[in-house]
């Protein structure tokens, strides 16, 4: 139950700046997701928070306590910061049994014996590892080790728990269960959680708030999942949060065209935000592209795949290939589209981004 505040954190490895003037506030009793592509500095940030490395500049607060300050020369030792951590590589101690791993933090923090047993058993049941109590980590699968690491973090702090990619090694079903479990644990205890991941879907499912970091270690946007999905602050956030198409646009006297080798007129009004003399691209999700007989935008279906709940199409649009998804229900209500067929396209929910000079799409 502690808030966390990063103030102007700067961290470098040699001449390589990982974080520059990084600031972020995390409210107490929330699950905060920090999401970004690998190599963006998420883990570095967490290592600064835990006290394993020292930033060059800035302050870090946990609750009202300043745990690190470059100016005031404060640097509290990791063991006194009272943060539970689930490490990327689990860091389950191979020479201790599951149970010994879990009681270690409580022993170090001098919790009374009876309570240790009680809380360890409870934590084991929370991660569904009770029957593996006496096993050594080498006898466990990767996913089971991860759950041991989660249990160990749960008992080691009741104010702040940091999870660094904690469920990447679980299969899909177990991953969803663990997300649910983490959520309900958080709701019950009210502990603040920081959840580090590159998997935006897991972050959306779990987190109250999400901060999106780009490759350079800058925070692009902080907000609730709705805010991030409906109002992505820039092109990076938009493309990071899901499969996306980017189509170059051209503004002409009579309206908006897409520029895909040939120019095709788009069926909707020129929005007010579009300025003259600037190149724009349209960002659009596959689900937001609709088949429409009377559109001037025409493409040819190159492939159609049935994925159960939806159909997935790759459509040749001029010199570009775009991805379109369609609900199975919609298809059943209208008709199926075949490979090789020419189709007209309408664009439903469109985001406009200024086009940087020639850049490869992510």
């Amino acid at each position, binding site marked *: 139950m502690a808030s966390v505040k990063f103030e102007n954190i700067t961290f470098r490895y040699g001449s390589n700046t990982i974080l520059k003037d990084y600031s972020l506030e995390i409210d107490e009793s929330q699950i905060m997701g920090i999401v970004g592509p690998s190599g963006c500095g998420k883990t570095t940030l967490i290592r600064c928070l835990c006290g394993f490395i020292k930033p060059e500049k800035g302050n870090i607060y946990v609750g009202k306590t300043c745990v690190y300050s470059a100016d005031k020369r404060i640097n509290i030792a990791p063991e*006194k910061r009272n943060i539970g951590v689930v*490490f990327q590589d689990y860091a389950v101690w191979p020479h201790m049994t599951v149970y010994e791993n879990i009681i270690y933090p409580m022993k*170090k*923090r001098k919790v009374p014996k009876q309570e240790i047993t009680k809380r360890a058993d409870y934590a084991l049941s929370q991660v569904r590892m009770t029957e593996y109590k006496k096993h050594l980590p080498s006898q466990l699968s990767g996913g089971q080790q991860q759950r041991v690491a989660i249990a160990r973090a749960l008992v080691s702090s009741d104010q702040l728990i940091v999870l660094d990619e904690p469920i990447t090694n679980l299969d899909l079903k177990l991953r969803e269960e663990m997300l649910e479990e983490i959520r309900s644990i958080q709701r019950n205890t009210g502990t603040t959680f920081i959840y580090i991941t590159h998997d935006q879907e897991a972050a959306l499912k779990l987190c109250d708030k999400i901060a999106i970091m780009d490759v350079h270690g800058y925070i692009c946007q902080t907000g609730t999942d709705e805010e991030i999905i409906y109002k992505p602050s820039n092109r990076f956030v938009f493309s990071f949060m899901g499969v996306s198409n980017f189509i170059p646009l051209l503004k002409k006297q009579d309206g908006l065209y897409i520029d895909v080798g040939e120019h095709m007129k788009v069926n909707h009004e020129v929005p007010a935000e579009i300025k003259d003399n600037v190149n724009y691209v349209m960002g659009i999700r596959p689900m937001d592209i609709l088949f429409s007989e009377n559109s001037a935008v025409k493409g040819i279906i190159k492939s159609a795949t049935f994925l159960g709940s939806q159909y997935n199409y790759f459509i040749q649009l001029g010199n570009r290939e775009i991805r379109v998804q369609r609900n199975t229900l919609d298809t059943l209500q209208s008709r199926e589209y075949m490979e090789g067929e020419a189709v007209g396209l309408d664009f439903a929910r469109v985001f406009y981004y200024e086009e940087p000079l020639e850049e490869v799409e992510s």
Partner: protein
Amino acid sequence: MRIGIRNKDLARQDGKRVRLDGMLTMLSFIILFIVVIIPLFMIIYNAFFYEGNLDVQLFINVIFSGDNLGAIKNTVIIALCVTVFGTIMGIFYAWLLGRSDIPLKGLMRGLFTIPYMFPPFFGAMAWDLLLSGRGGYLNNWLMQTFNLAEAPININSVWGIVFVEVSYYFPFVFMQVVSALERMDPTLEESARISGAKQGYVIRKITLPLVLPAISAGALLILISSLSHFGVPSILGFSQNIYTLPTKIYQLINRAAGDFQGVREGAALSVLLIFIVGTALILQRAVLRSGSYDIIRGKSMRPMLIKLRGAKQPLLIFAFLSLIVIVLVPLVMIFLVGLLKAYGLPLIPANFTLKNYTNILFNNKMVSDAIGNSLFLSVSAGIIAMFLGVMIAYVIIKIKPKGKEVLEVISILPYSIPGTVLAIGVILAWSGAIAKINLYNTIWIILIAYIARYLSFSMKSASASLQQVHYSLEDAARSCGASHMESLKDITLPLIRPAMVSGFFLIFLPAMRELTTSVLLYGPYTRTLGVAIYSLRSDGYITQASALASVAILLIIICNTIVTQITKDRKGV
């Protein structure tokens, strides 16, 4: 469970906290400075300075004196010959065992480990008994049988020294090449065969180039070991005035009997020896850097075996005979002579007695002292060097301070410094020259030399193991509330315990049979096992020396078995 930290304490925390990292780093540097740098510095200083003034004259005189030039020549000739013959032999056996379908491979492998375990000077003693120019057993028998006027083979010669050293050093190449052959991807050879290449062509053009790095690594190891080797040339060469640099240094120090001029001359020769070994080392670095192939994989695969067909029987007989001559004959000889009533009597059961054993074990104060000293030295050097090695490895691998490369080089340095040279450095440093500390003639001066000499063994074994301990394991303990010290104690040390145990034995075993360093450092009451055997022999008690050597061989075999047992258990975990 929440730990309240009062804000006013915070400012003080950073400054006041004892920085374990910094302390360990400092300590590593200080210890290595004392143990390694000071002795080396003292050698160079004393070789070139006299009472504070530069004095190159002594150095020049020493190097260009006729005696010493002869020693330099012998050292280089012996080392080169040992390297060439040892390498050829090593490759031959490696190919035979690694690539051909010769039977009884397991037995032969077992025999190959024997030269690894015993000090070469035991072999020199045995061959001296057999083939000494003046009445070696084998020589006498040959003279009688064939009515020869003089001994047909004289082991007390440069060639004799080369022969004995080869038989103890060829396993360096053998081991390297066998493991390279085993790790080599067999499809490389198979695809050459499929493309139509003949057997001989495949060996020359595919196999040989691939194992070349292993061969050169092993060969240079032989070269360096032979250059700094003391035991064999001293046992076989002294009687004929054949000297190498290490034995010449020993003679100078011994003759000087405390006279400083003699020690300085020894120091001057040491500088020369360091220079020669250093050249070989630089050569080794260059060769090792240029040749490592990725196609040699860590995974073990079943290689294609070459059918020997008609050559199988003759090769098998030849391999076994040569192995028996090299490995078993000296051992048997030592045991038999140890049983003789008097040296020179024929080797028949009627002349055998156990009196030598009872004499040395129960009635000889010098011997029992020596065994006690060796045990004390090996165990304490083992324990101390093991912990120091772990600490230095921890600093290098985990703390990674500025200057860690320096630390690494300094800690490995003594391994390539000849034992004789190290001994001179230790004498110069700890006979009152520094802070009036005089350890000469005490057991502590030998202990210091052993620690310096064997530190790199435990450091290497600890580094390899520490590299497997990911930093997050310690971090996890820290965030669970353990202090840095507690995380070391609870997590890191238990995880590298197996490496610590094997590090201890890696030091204990060679220290038990050590001769080169202790022969220069021992005092009246601080003989070691090696020194005791050596002095018994040079004082003419040849049967007793053999008996004690037999006891040492048994001790070594027992310890080796224990170590193999321990390391076997480790694999199961």
